[in-house]
């Protein structure tokens, strides 16, 4: 997995949230939201991060930007360890790393005009020489994402979900970042609008040479946009592979079940579905050994005791399972 020309390298990232309880609000337990995650993203590549609710994919994305403080681990970006940065270094890091959120309603300040939202970062990072340059840049950004110049004087509530997501993208682009963490950017949108935003993200990547960490639960969307995909389950990465490889030959039993559960919009396609029993276990007290053993169709007794390592089974295709790959 070591990759010398990686733009971002995450090593053994962990994030534990304290669970407080009792009258004194003492820490009574820990949620292992991210439990030893490692991966690389090459410049210009899109790494898809998939998994079901509570698998830690969003927490991973936020730790990378230090919007959430990681408990341990290393995050190497452009030769520097993000986890060791002080406030000044972090501020300049945010010029290179941006994020787009899922909910285009909650992530835009309703009291600011679109122009102020998109232009805020230009002011903070001193990126516009004059007032005129500032305004020209805002207009240019709005046009880049398919909005119009006169939209800058309007407020977020005047826009539809898809347009708001475009505003969020324009805001992220303002500082000319290298990496954008896209956290479920199309999950709240209708399918016809979803396609517009996916196409826009692809165009922008080509135009500006952007690198994406694309977090989503919709496997068809992730497969479409990603170069490589990492599958997470209960805080750990269970498989990483080139997108096509993962879909053609998933190795981990969880990836296999996840893929087979995706409904195909074609009634003539009949597939064998692997039905997983039960729900995802509680991350406060995850199963021992391999986290997936309680639901795994091929689990053997030692899966409950031995934690599988992520190992390269084929070139570029990594899996953490004792019995597959």
């Amino acid at each position, binding site marked *: 997995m070591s990759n010398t020309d990686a733009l971002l390298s995450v090593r053994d990232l962990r994030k534990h949230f304290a669970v407080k309880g009792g009258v004194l609000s003492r820490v009574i337990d820990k949620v292992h939201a991210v439990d030893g995650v490692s991966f690389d993203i090459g410049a210009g590549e899109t790494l898809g991060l998939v998994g079901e609710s509570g698998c830690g994919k969003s927490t991973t994305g936020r730790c990378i930007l230090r919007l959430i403080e990681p408990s341990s681990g290393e995050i190497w970006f452009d030769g520097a360890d993000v986890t060791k940065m002080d406030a000044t270094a972090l501020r300049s890091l945010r010029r290179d790393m941006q994020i787009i959120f899922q909910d285009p309603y909650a992530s835009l300040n309703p009291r600011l005009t679109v122009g102020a939202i998109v232009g805020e970062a230009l002011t903070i990072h001193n990126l516009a020489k004059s007032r005129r340059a500032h305004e020209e840049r805002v207009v240019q950004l709005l046009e880049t994402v398919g909005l119009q110049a006169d939209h800058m004087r309007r407020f977020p509530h005047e826009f539809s979900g898809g347009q708001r997501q475009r505003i969020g993208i324009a805001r992220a682009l303002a500082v000319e970042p290298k990496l954008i963490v896209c956290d479920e950017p199309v999950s709240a949108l209708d399918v016809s609008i979803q396609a517009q935003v996916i196409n826009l993200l692809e165009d922008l990547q080509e135009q500006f040479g952007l690198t994406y960490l694309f977090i989503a639960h919709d496997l068809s969307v992730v497969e479409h946009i990603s170069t490589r995909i990492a599958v997470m389950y209960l805080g750990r990465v269970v498989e990483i592979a080139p997108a096509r490889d993962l879909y053609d030959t998933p190795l981990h039993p969880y990836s296999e079940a996840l893929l087979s559960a995706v*409904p195909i919009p074609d009634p003539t396609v009949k597939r064998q579905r692997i039905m*997983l029993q039960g729900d995802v276990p509680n991350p406060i007290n995850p199963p021992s050994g391999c986290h997936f053993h309680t639901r795994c169709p091929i689990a053997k007794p030692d899966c409950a005791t031995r934690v599988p390592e992520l190992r390269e089974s084929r070139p570029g295709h990594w899996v953490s399972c004792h019995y597959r790959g």
Partner: protein
Amino acid sequence: MAEPLLDIRGLKTWFKTDDGMVRAVDGVSLSIDRGETLGVVGESGCGKTVTARSVLKLIDMPPGRFEAGQILWQGRDLIPLDETEMNKIRAREIAIIFQEPMTSLNPVYTVGDQIAEVIELHQKLSRKQAMVGAADMLKLVNIPNPERRVHDYPHQFSGGMRQRVMIAMALSCQPKLLIADEPTTALDVTIQAQILELMQEMKERFGMAIMLITHAMGVVAETTQRVVVMYAGKVVEEAPVGALFGDPRHPYTQGLIRSIPRVDRSAGRQARLESIPGTVPSLLDPPPGCRFAARCRYVMPACTQAIPPLKEVAPGHKVACIL
């Protein structure tokens, strides 16, 4: 041909707002036969949920009102019925499950109490018998330890389990029609697969019809026999599921199907997704003529003049497009 179980004719459900009349459902006709699964698809605001709720008259009036149309349940129009008469139909004949099971369960009663209430009310049983019935229903929907779980509260169940509870409640009076409004939208994909399988199993067991409302084309393709596509308060296409996906006729349906990325056959990143430009029109003051005209790639002058009627182009395949 036998009389359909449910026959909605020219239904108009409008809402009065400060800005004017919102024509949420504007002349919808559709029917469901006994034992059939009908899919109703469309994007947010197309009127699919309002149509479903209209059938059970779960619309607040005001601001809502039935402007026109009939809802024929086994030949009898439901619109003029009062609440007492509707309550005889609800749950016993037509049941509904919603997208968000947490908000449709009462958090301060145990799930057993809530299911037993339905059974007690509609089957005139004692509370004790009803509680036994509730446990049986939980067992039927594959909830482990049903005798113990009846005493649990909704928050003690996971999302998938809550939806199972909702299904248990809906089926407790063995309705002839189950309306499922986005039943799996809030669930993870592996749990969605479990719930869809359960619904299929229950349908075979009880022989009921299902009206499945969803925006997910994949779910429709895998679970329904016939599909109605809605756009901006109107039905634009109706077809057997094979014909809809194999030979979609309305430009909106075509766009909808092509804009979904597909896991099973994809050229990966090379293939660009087809998208439908623009957004759904406002239902406050809908444009004259075809409501899809502003986003349609085949638009002609005639499209904006009159609303195209739903015409049969092949047996069972109807399209509202002048092309």
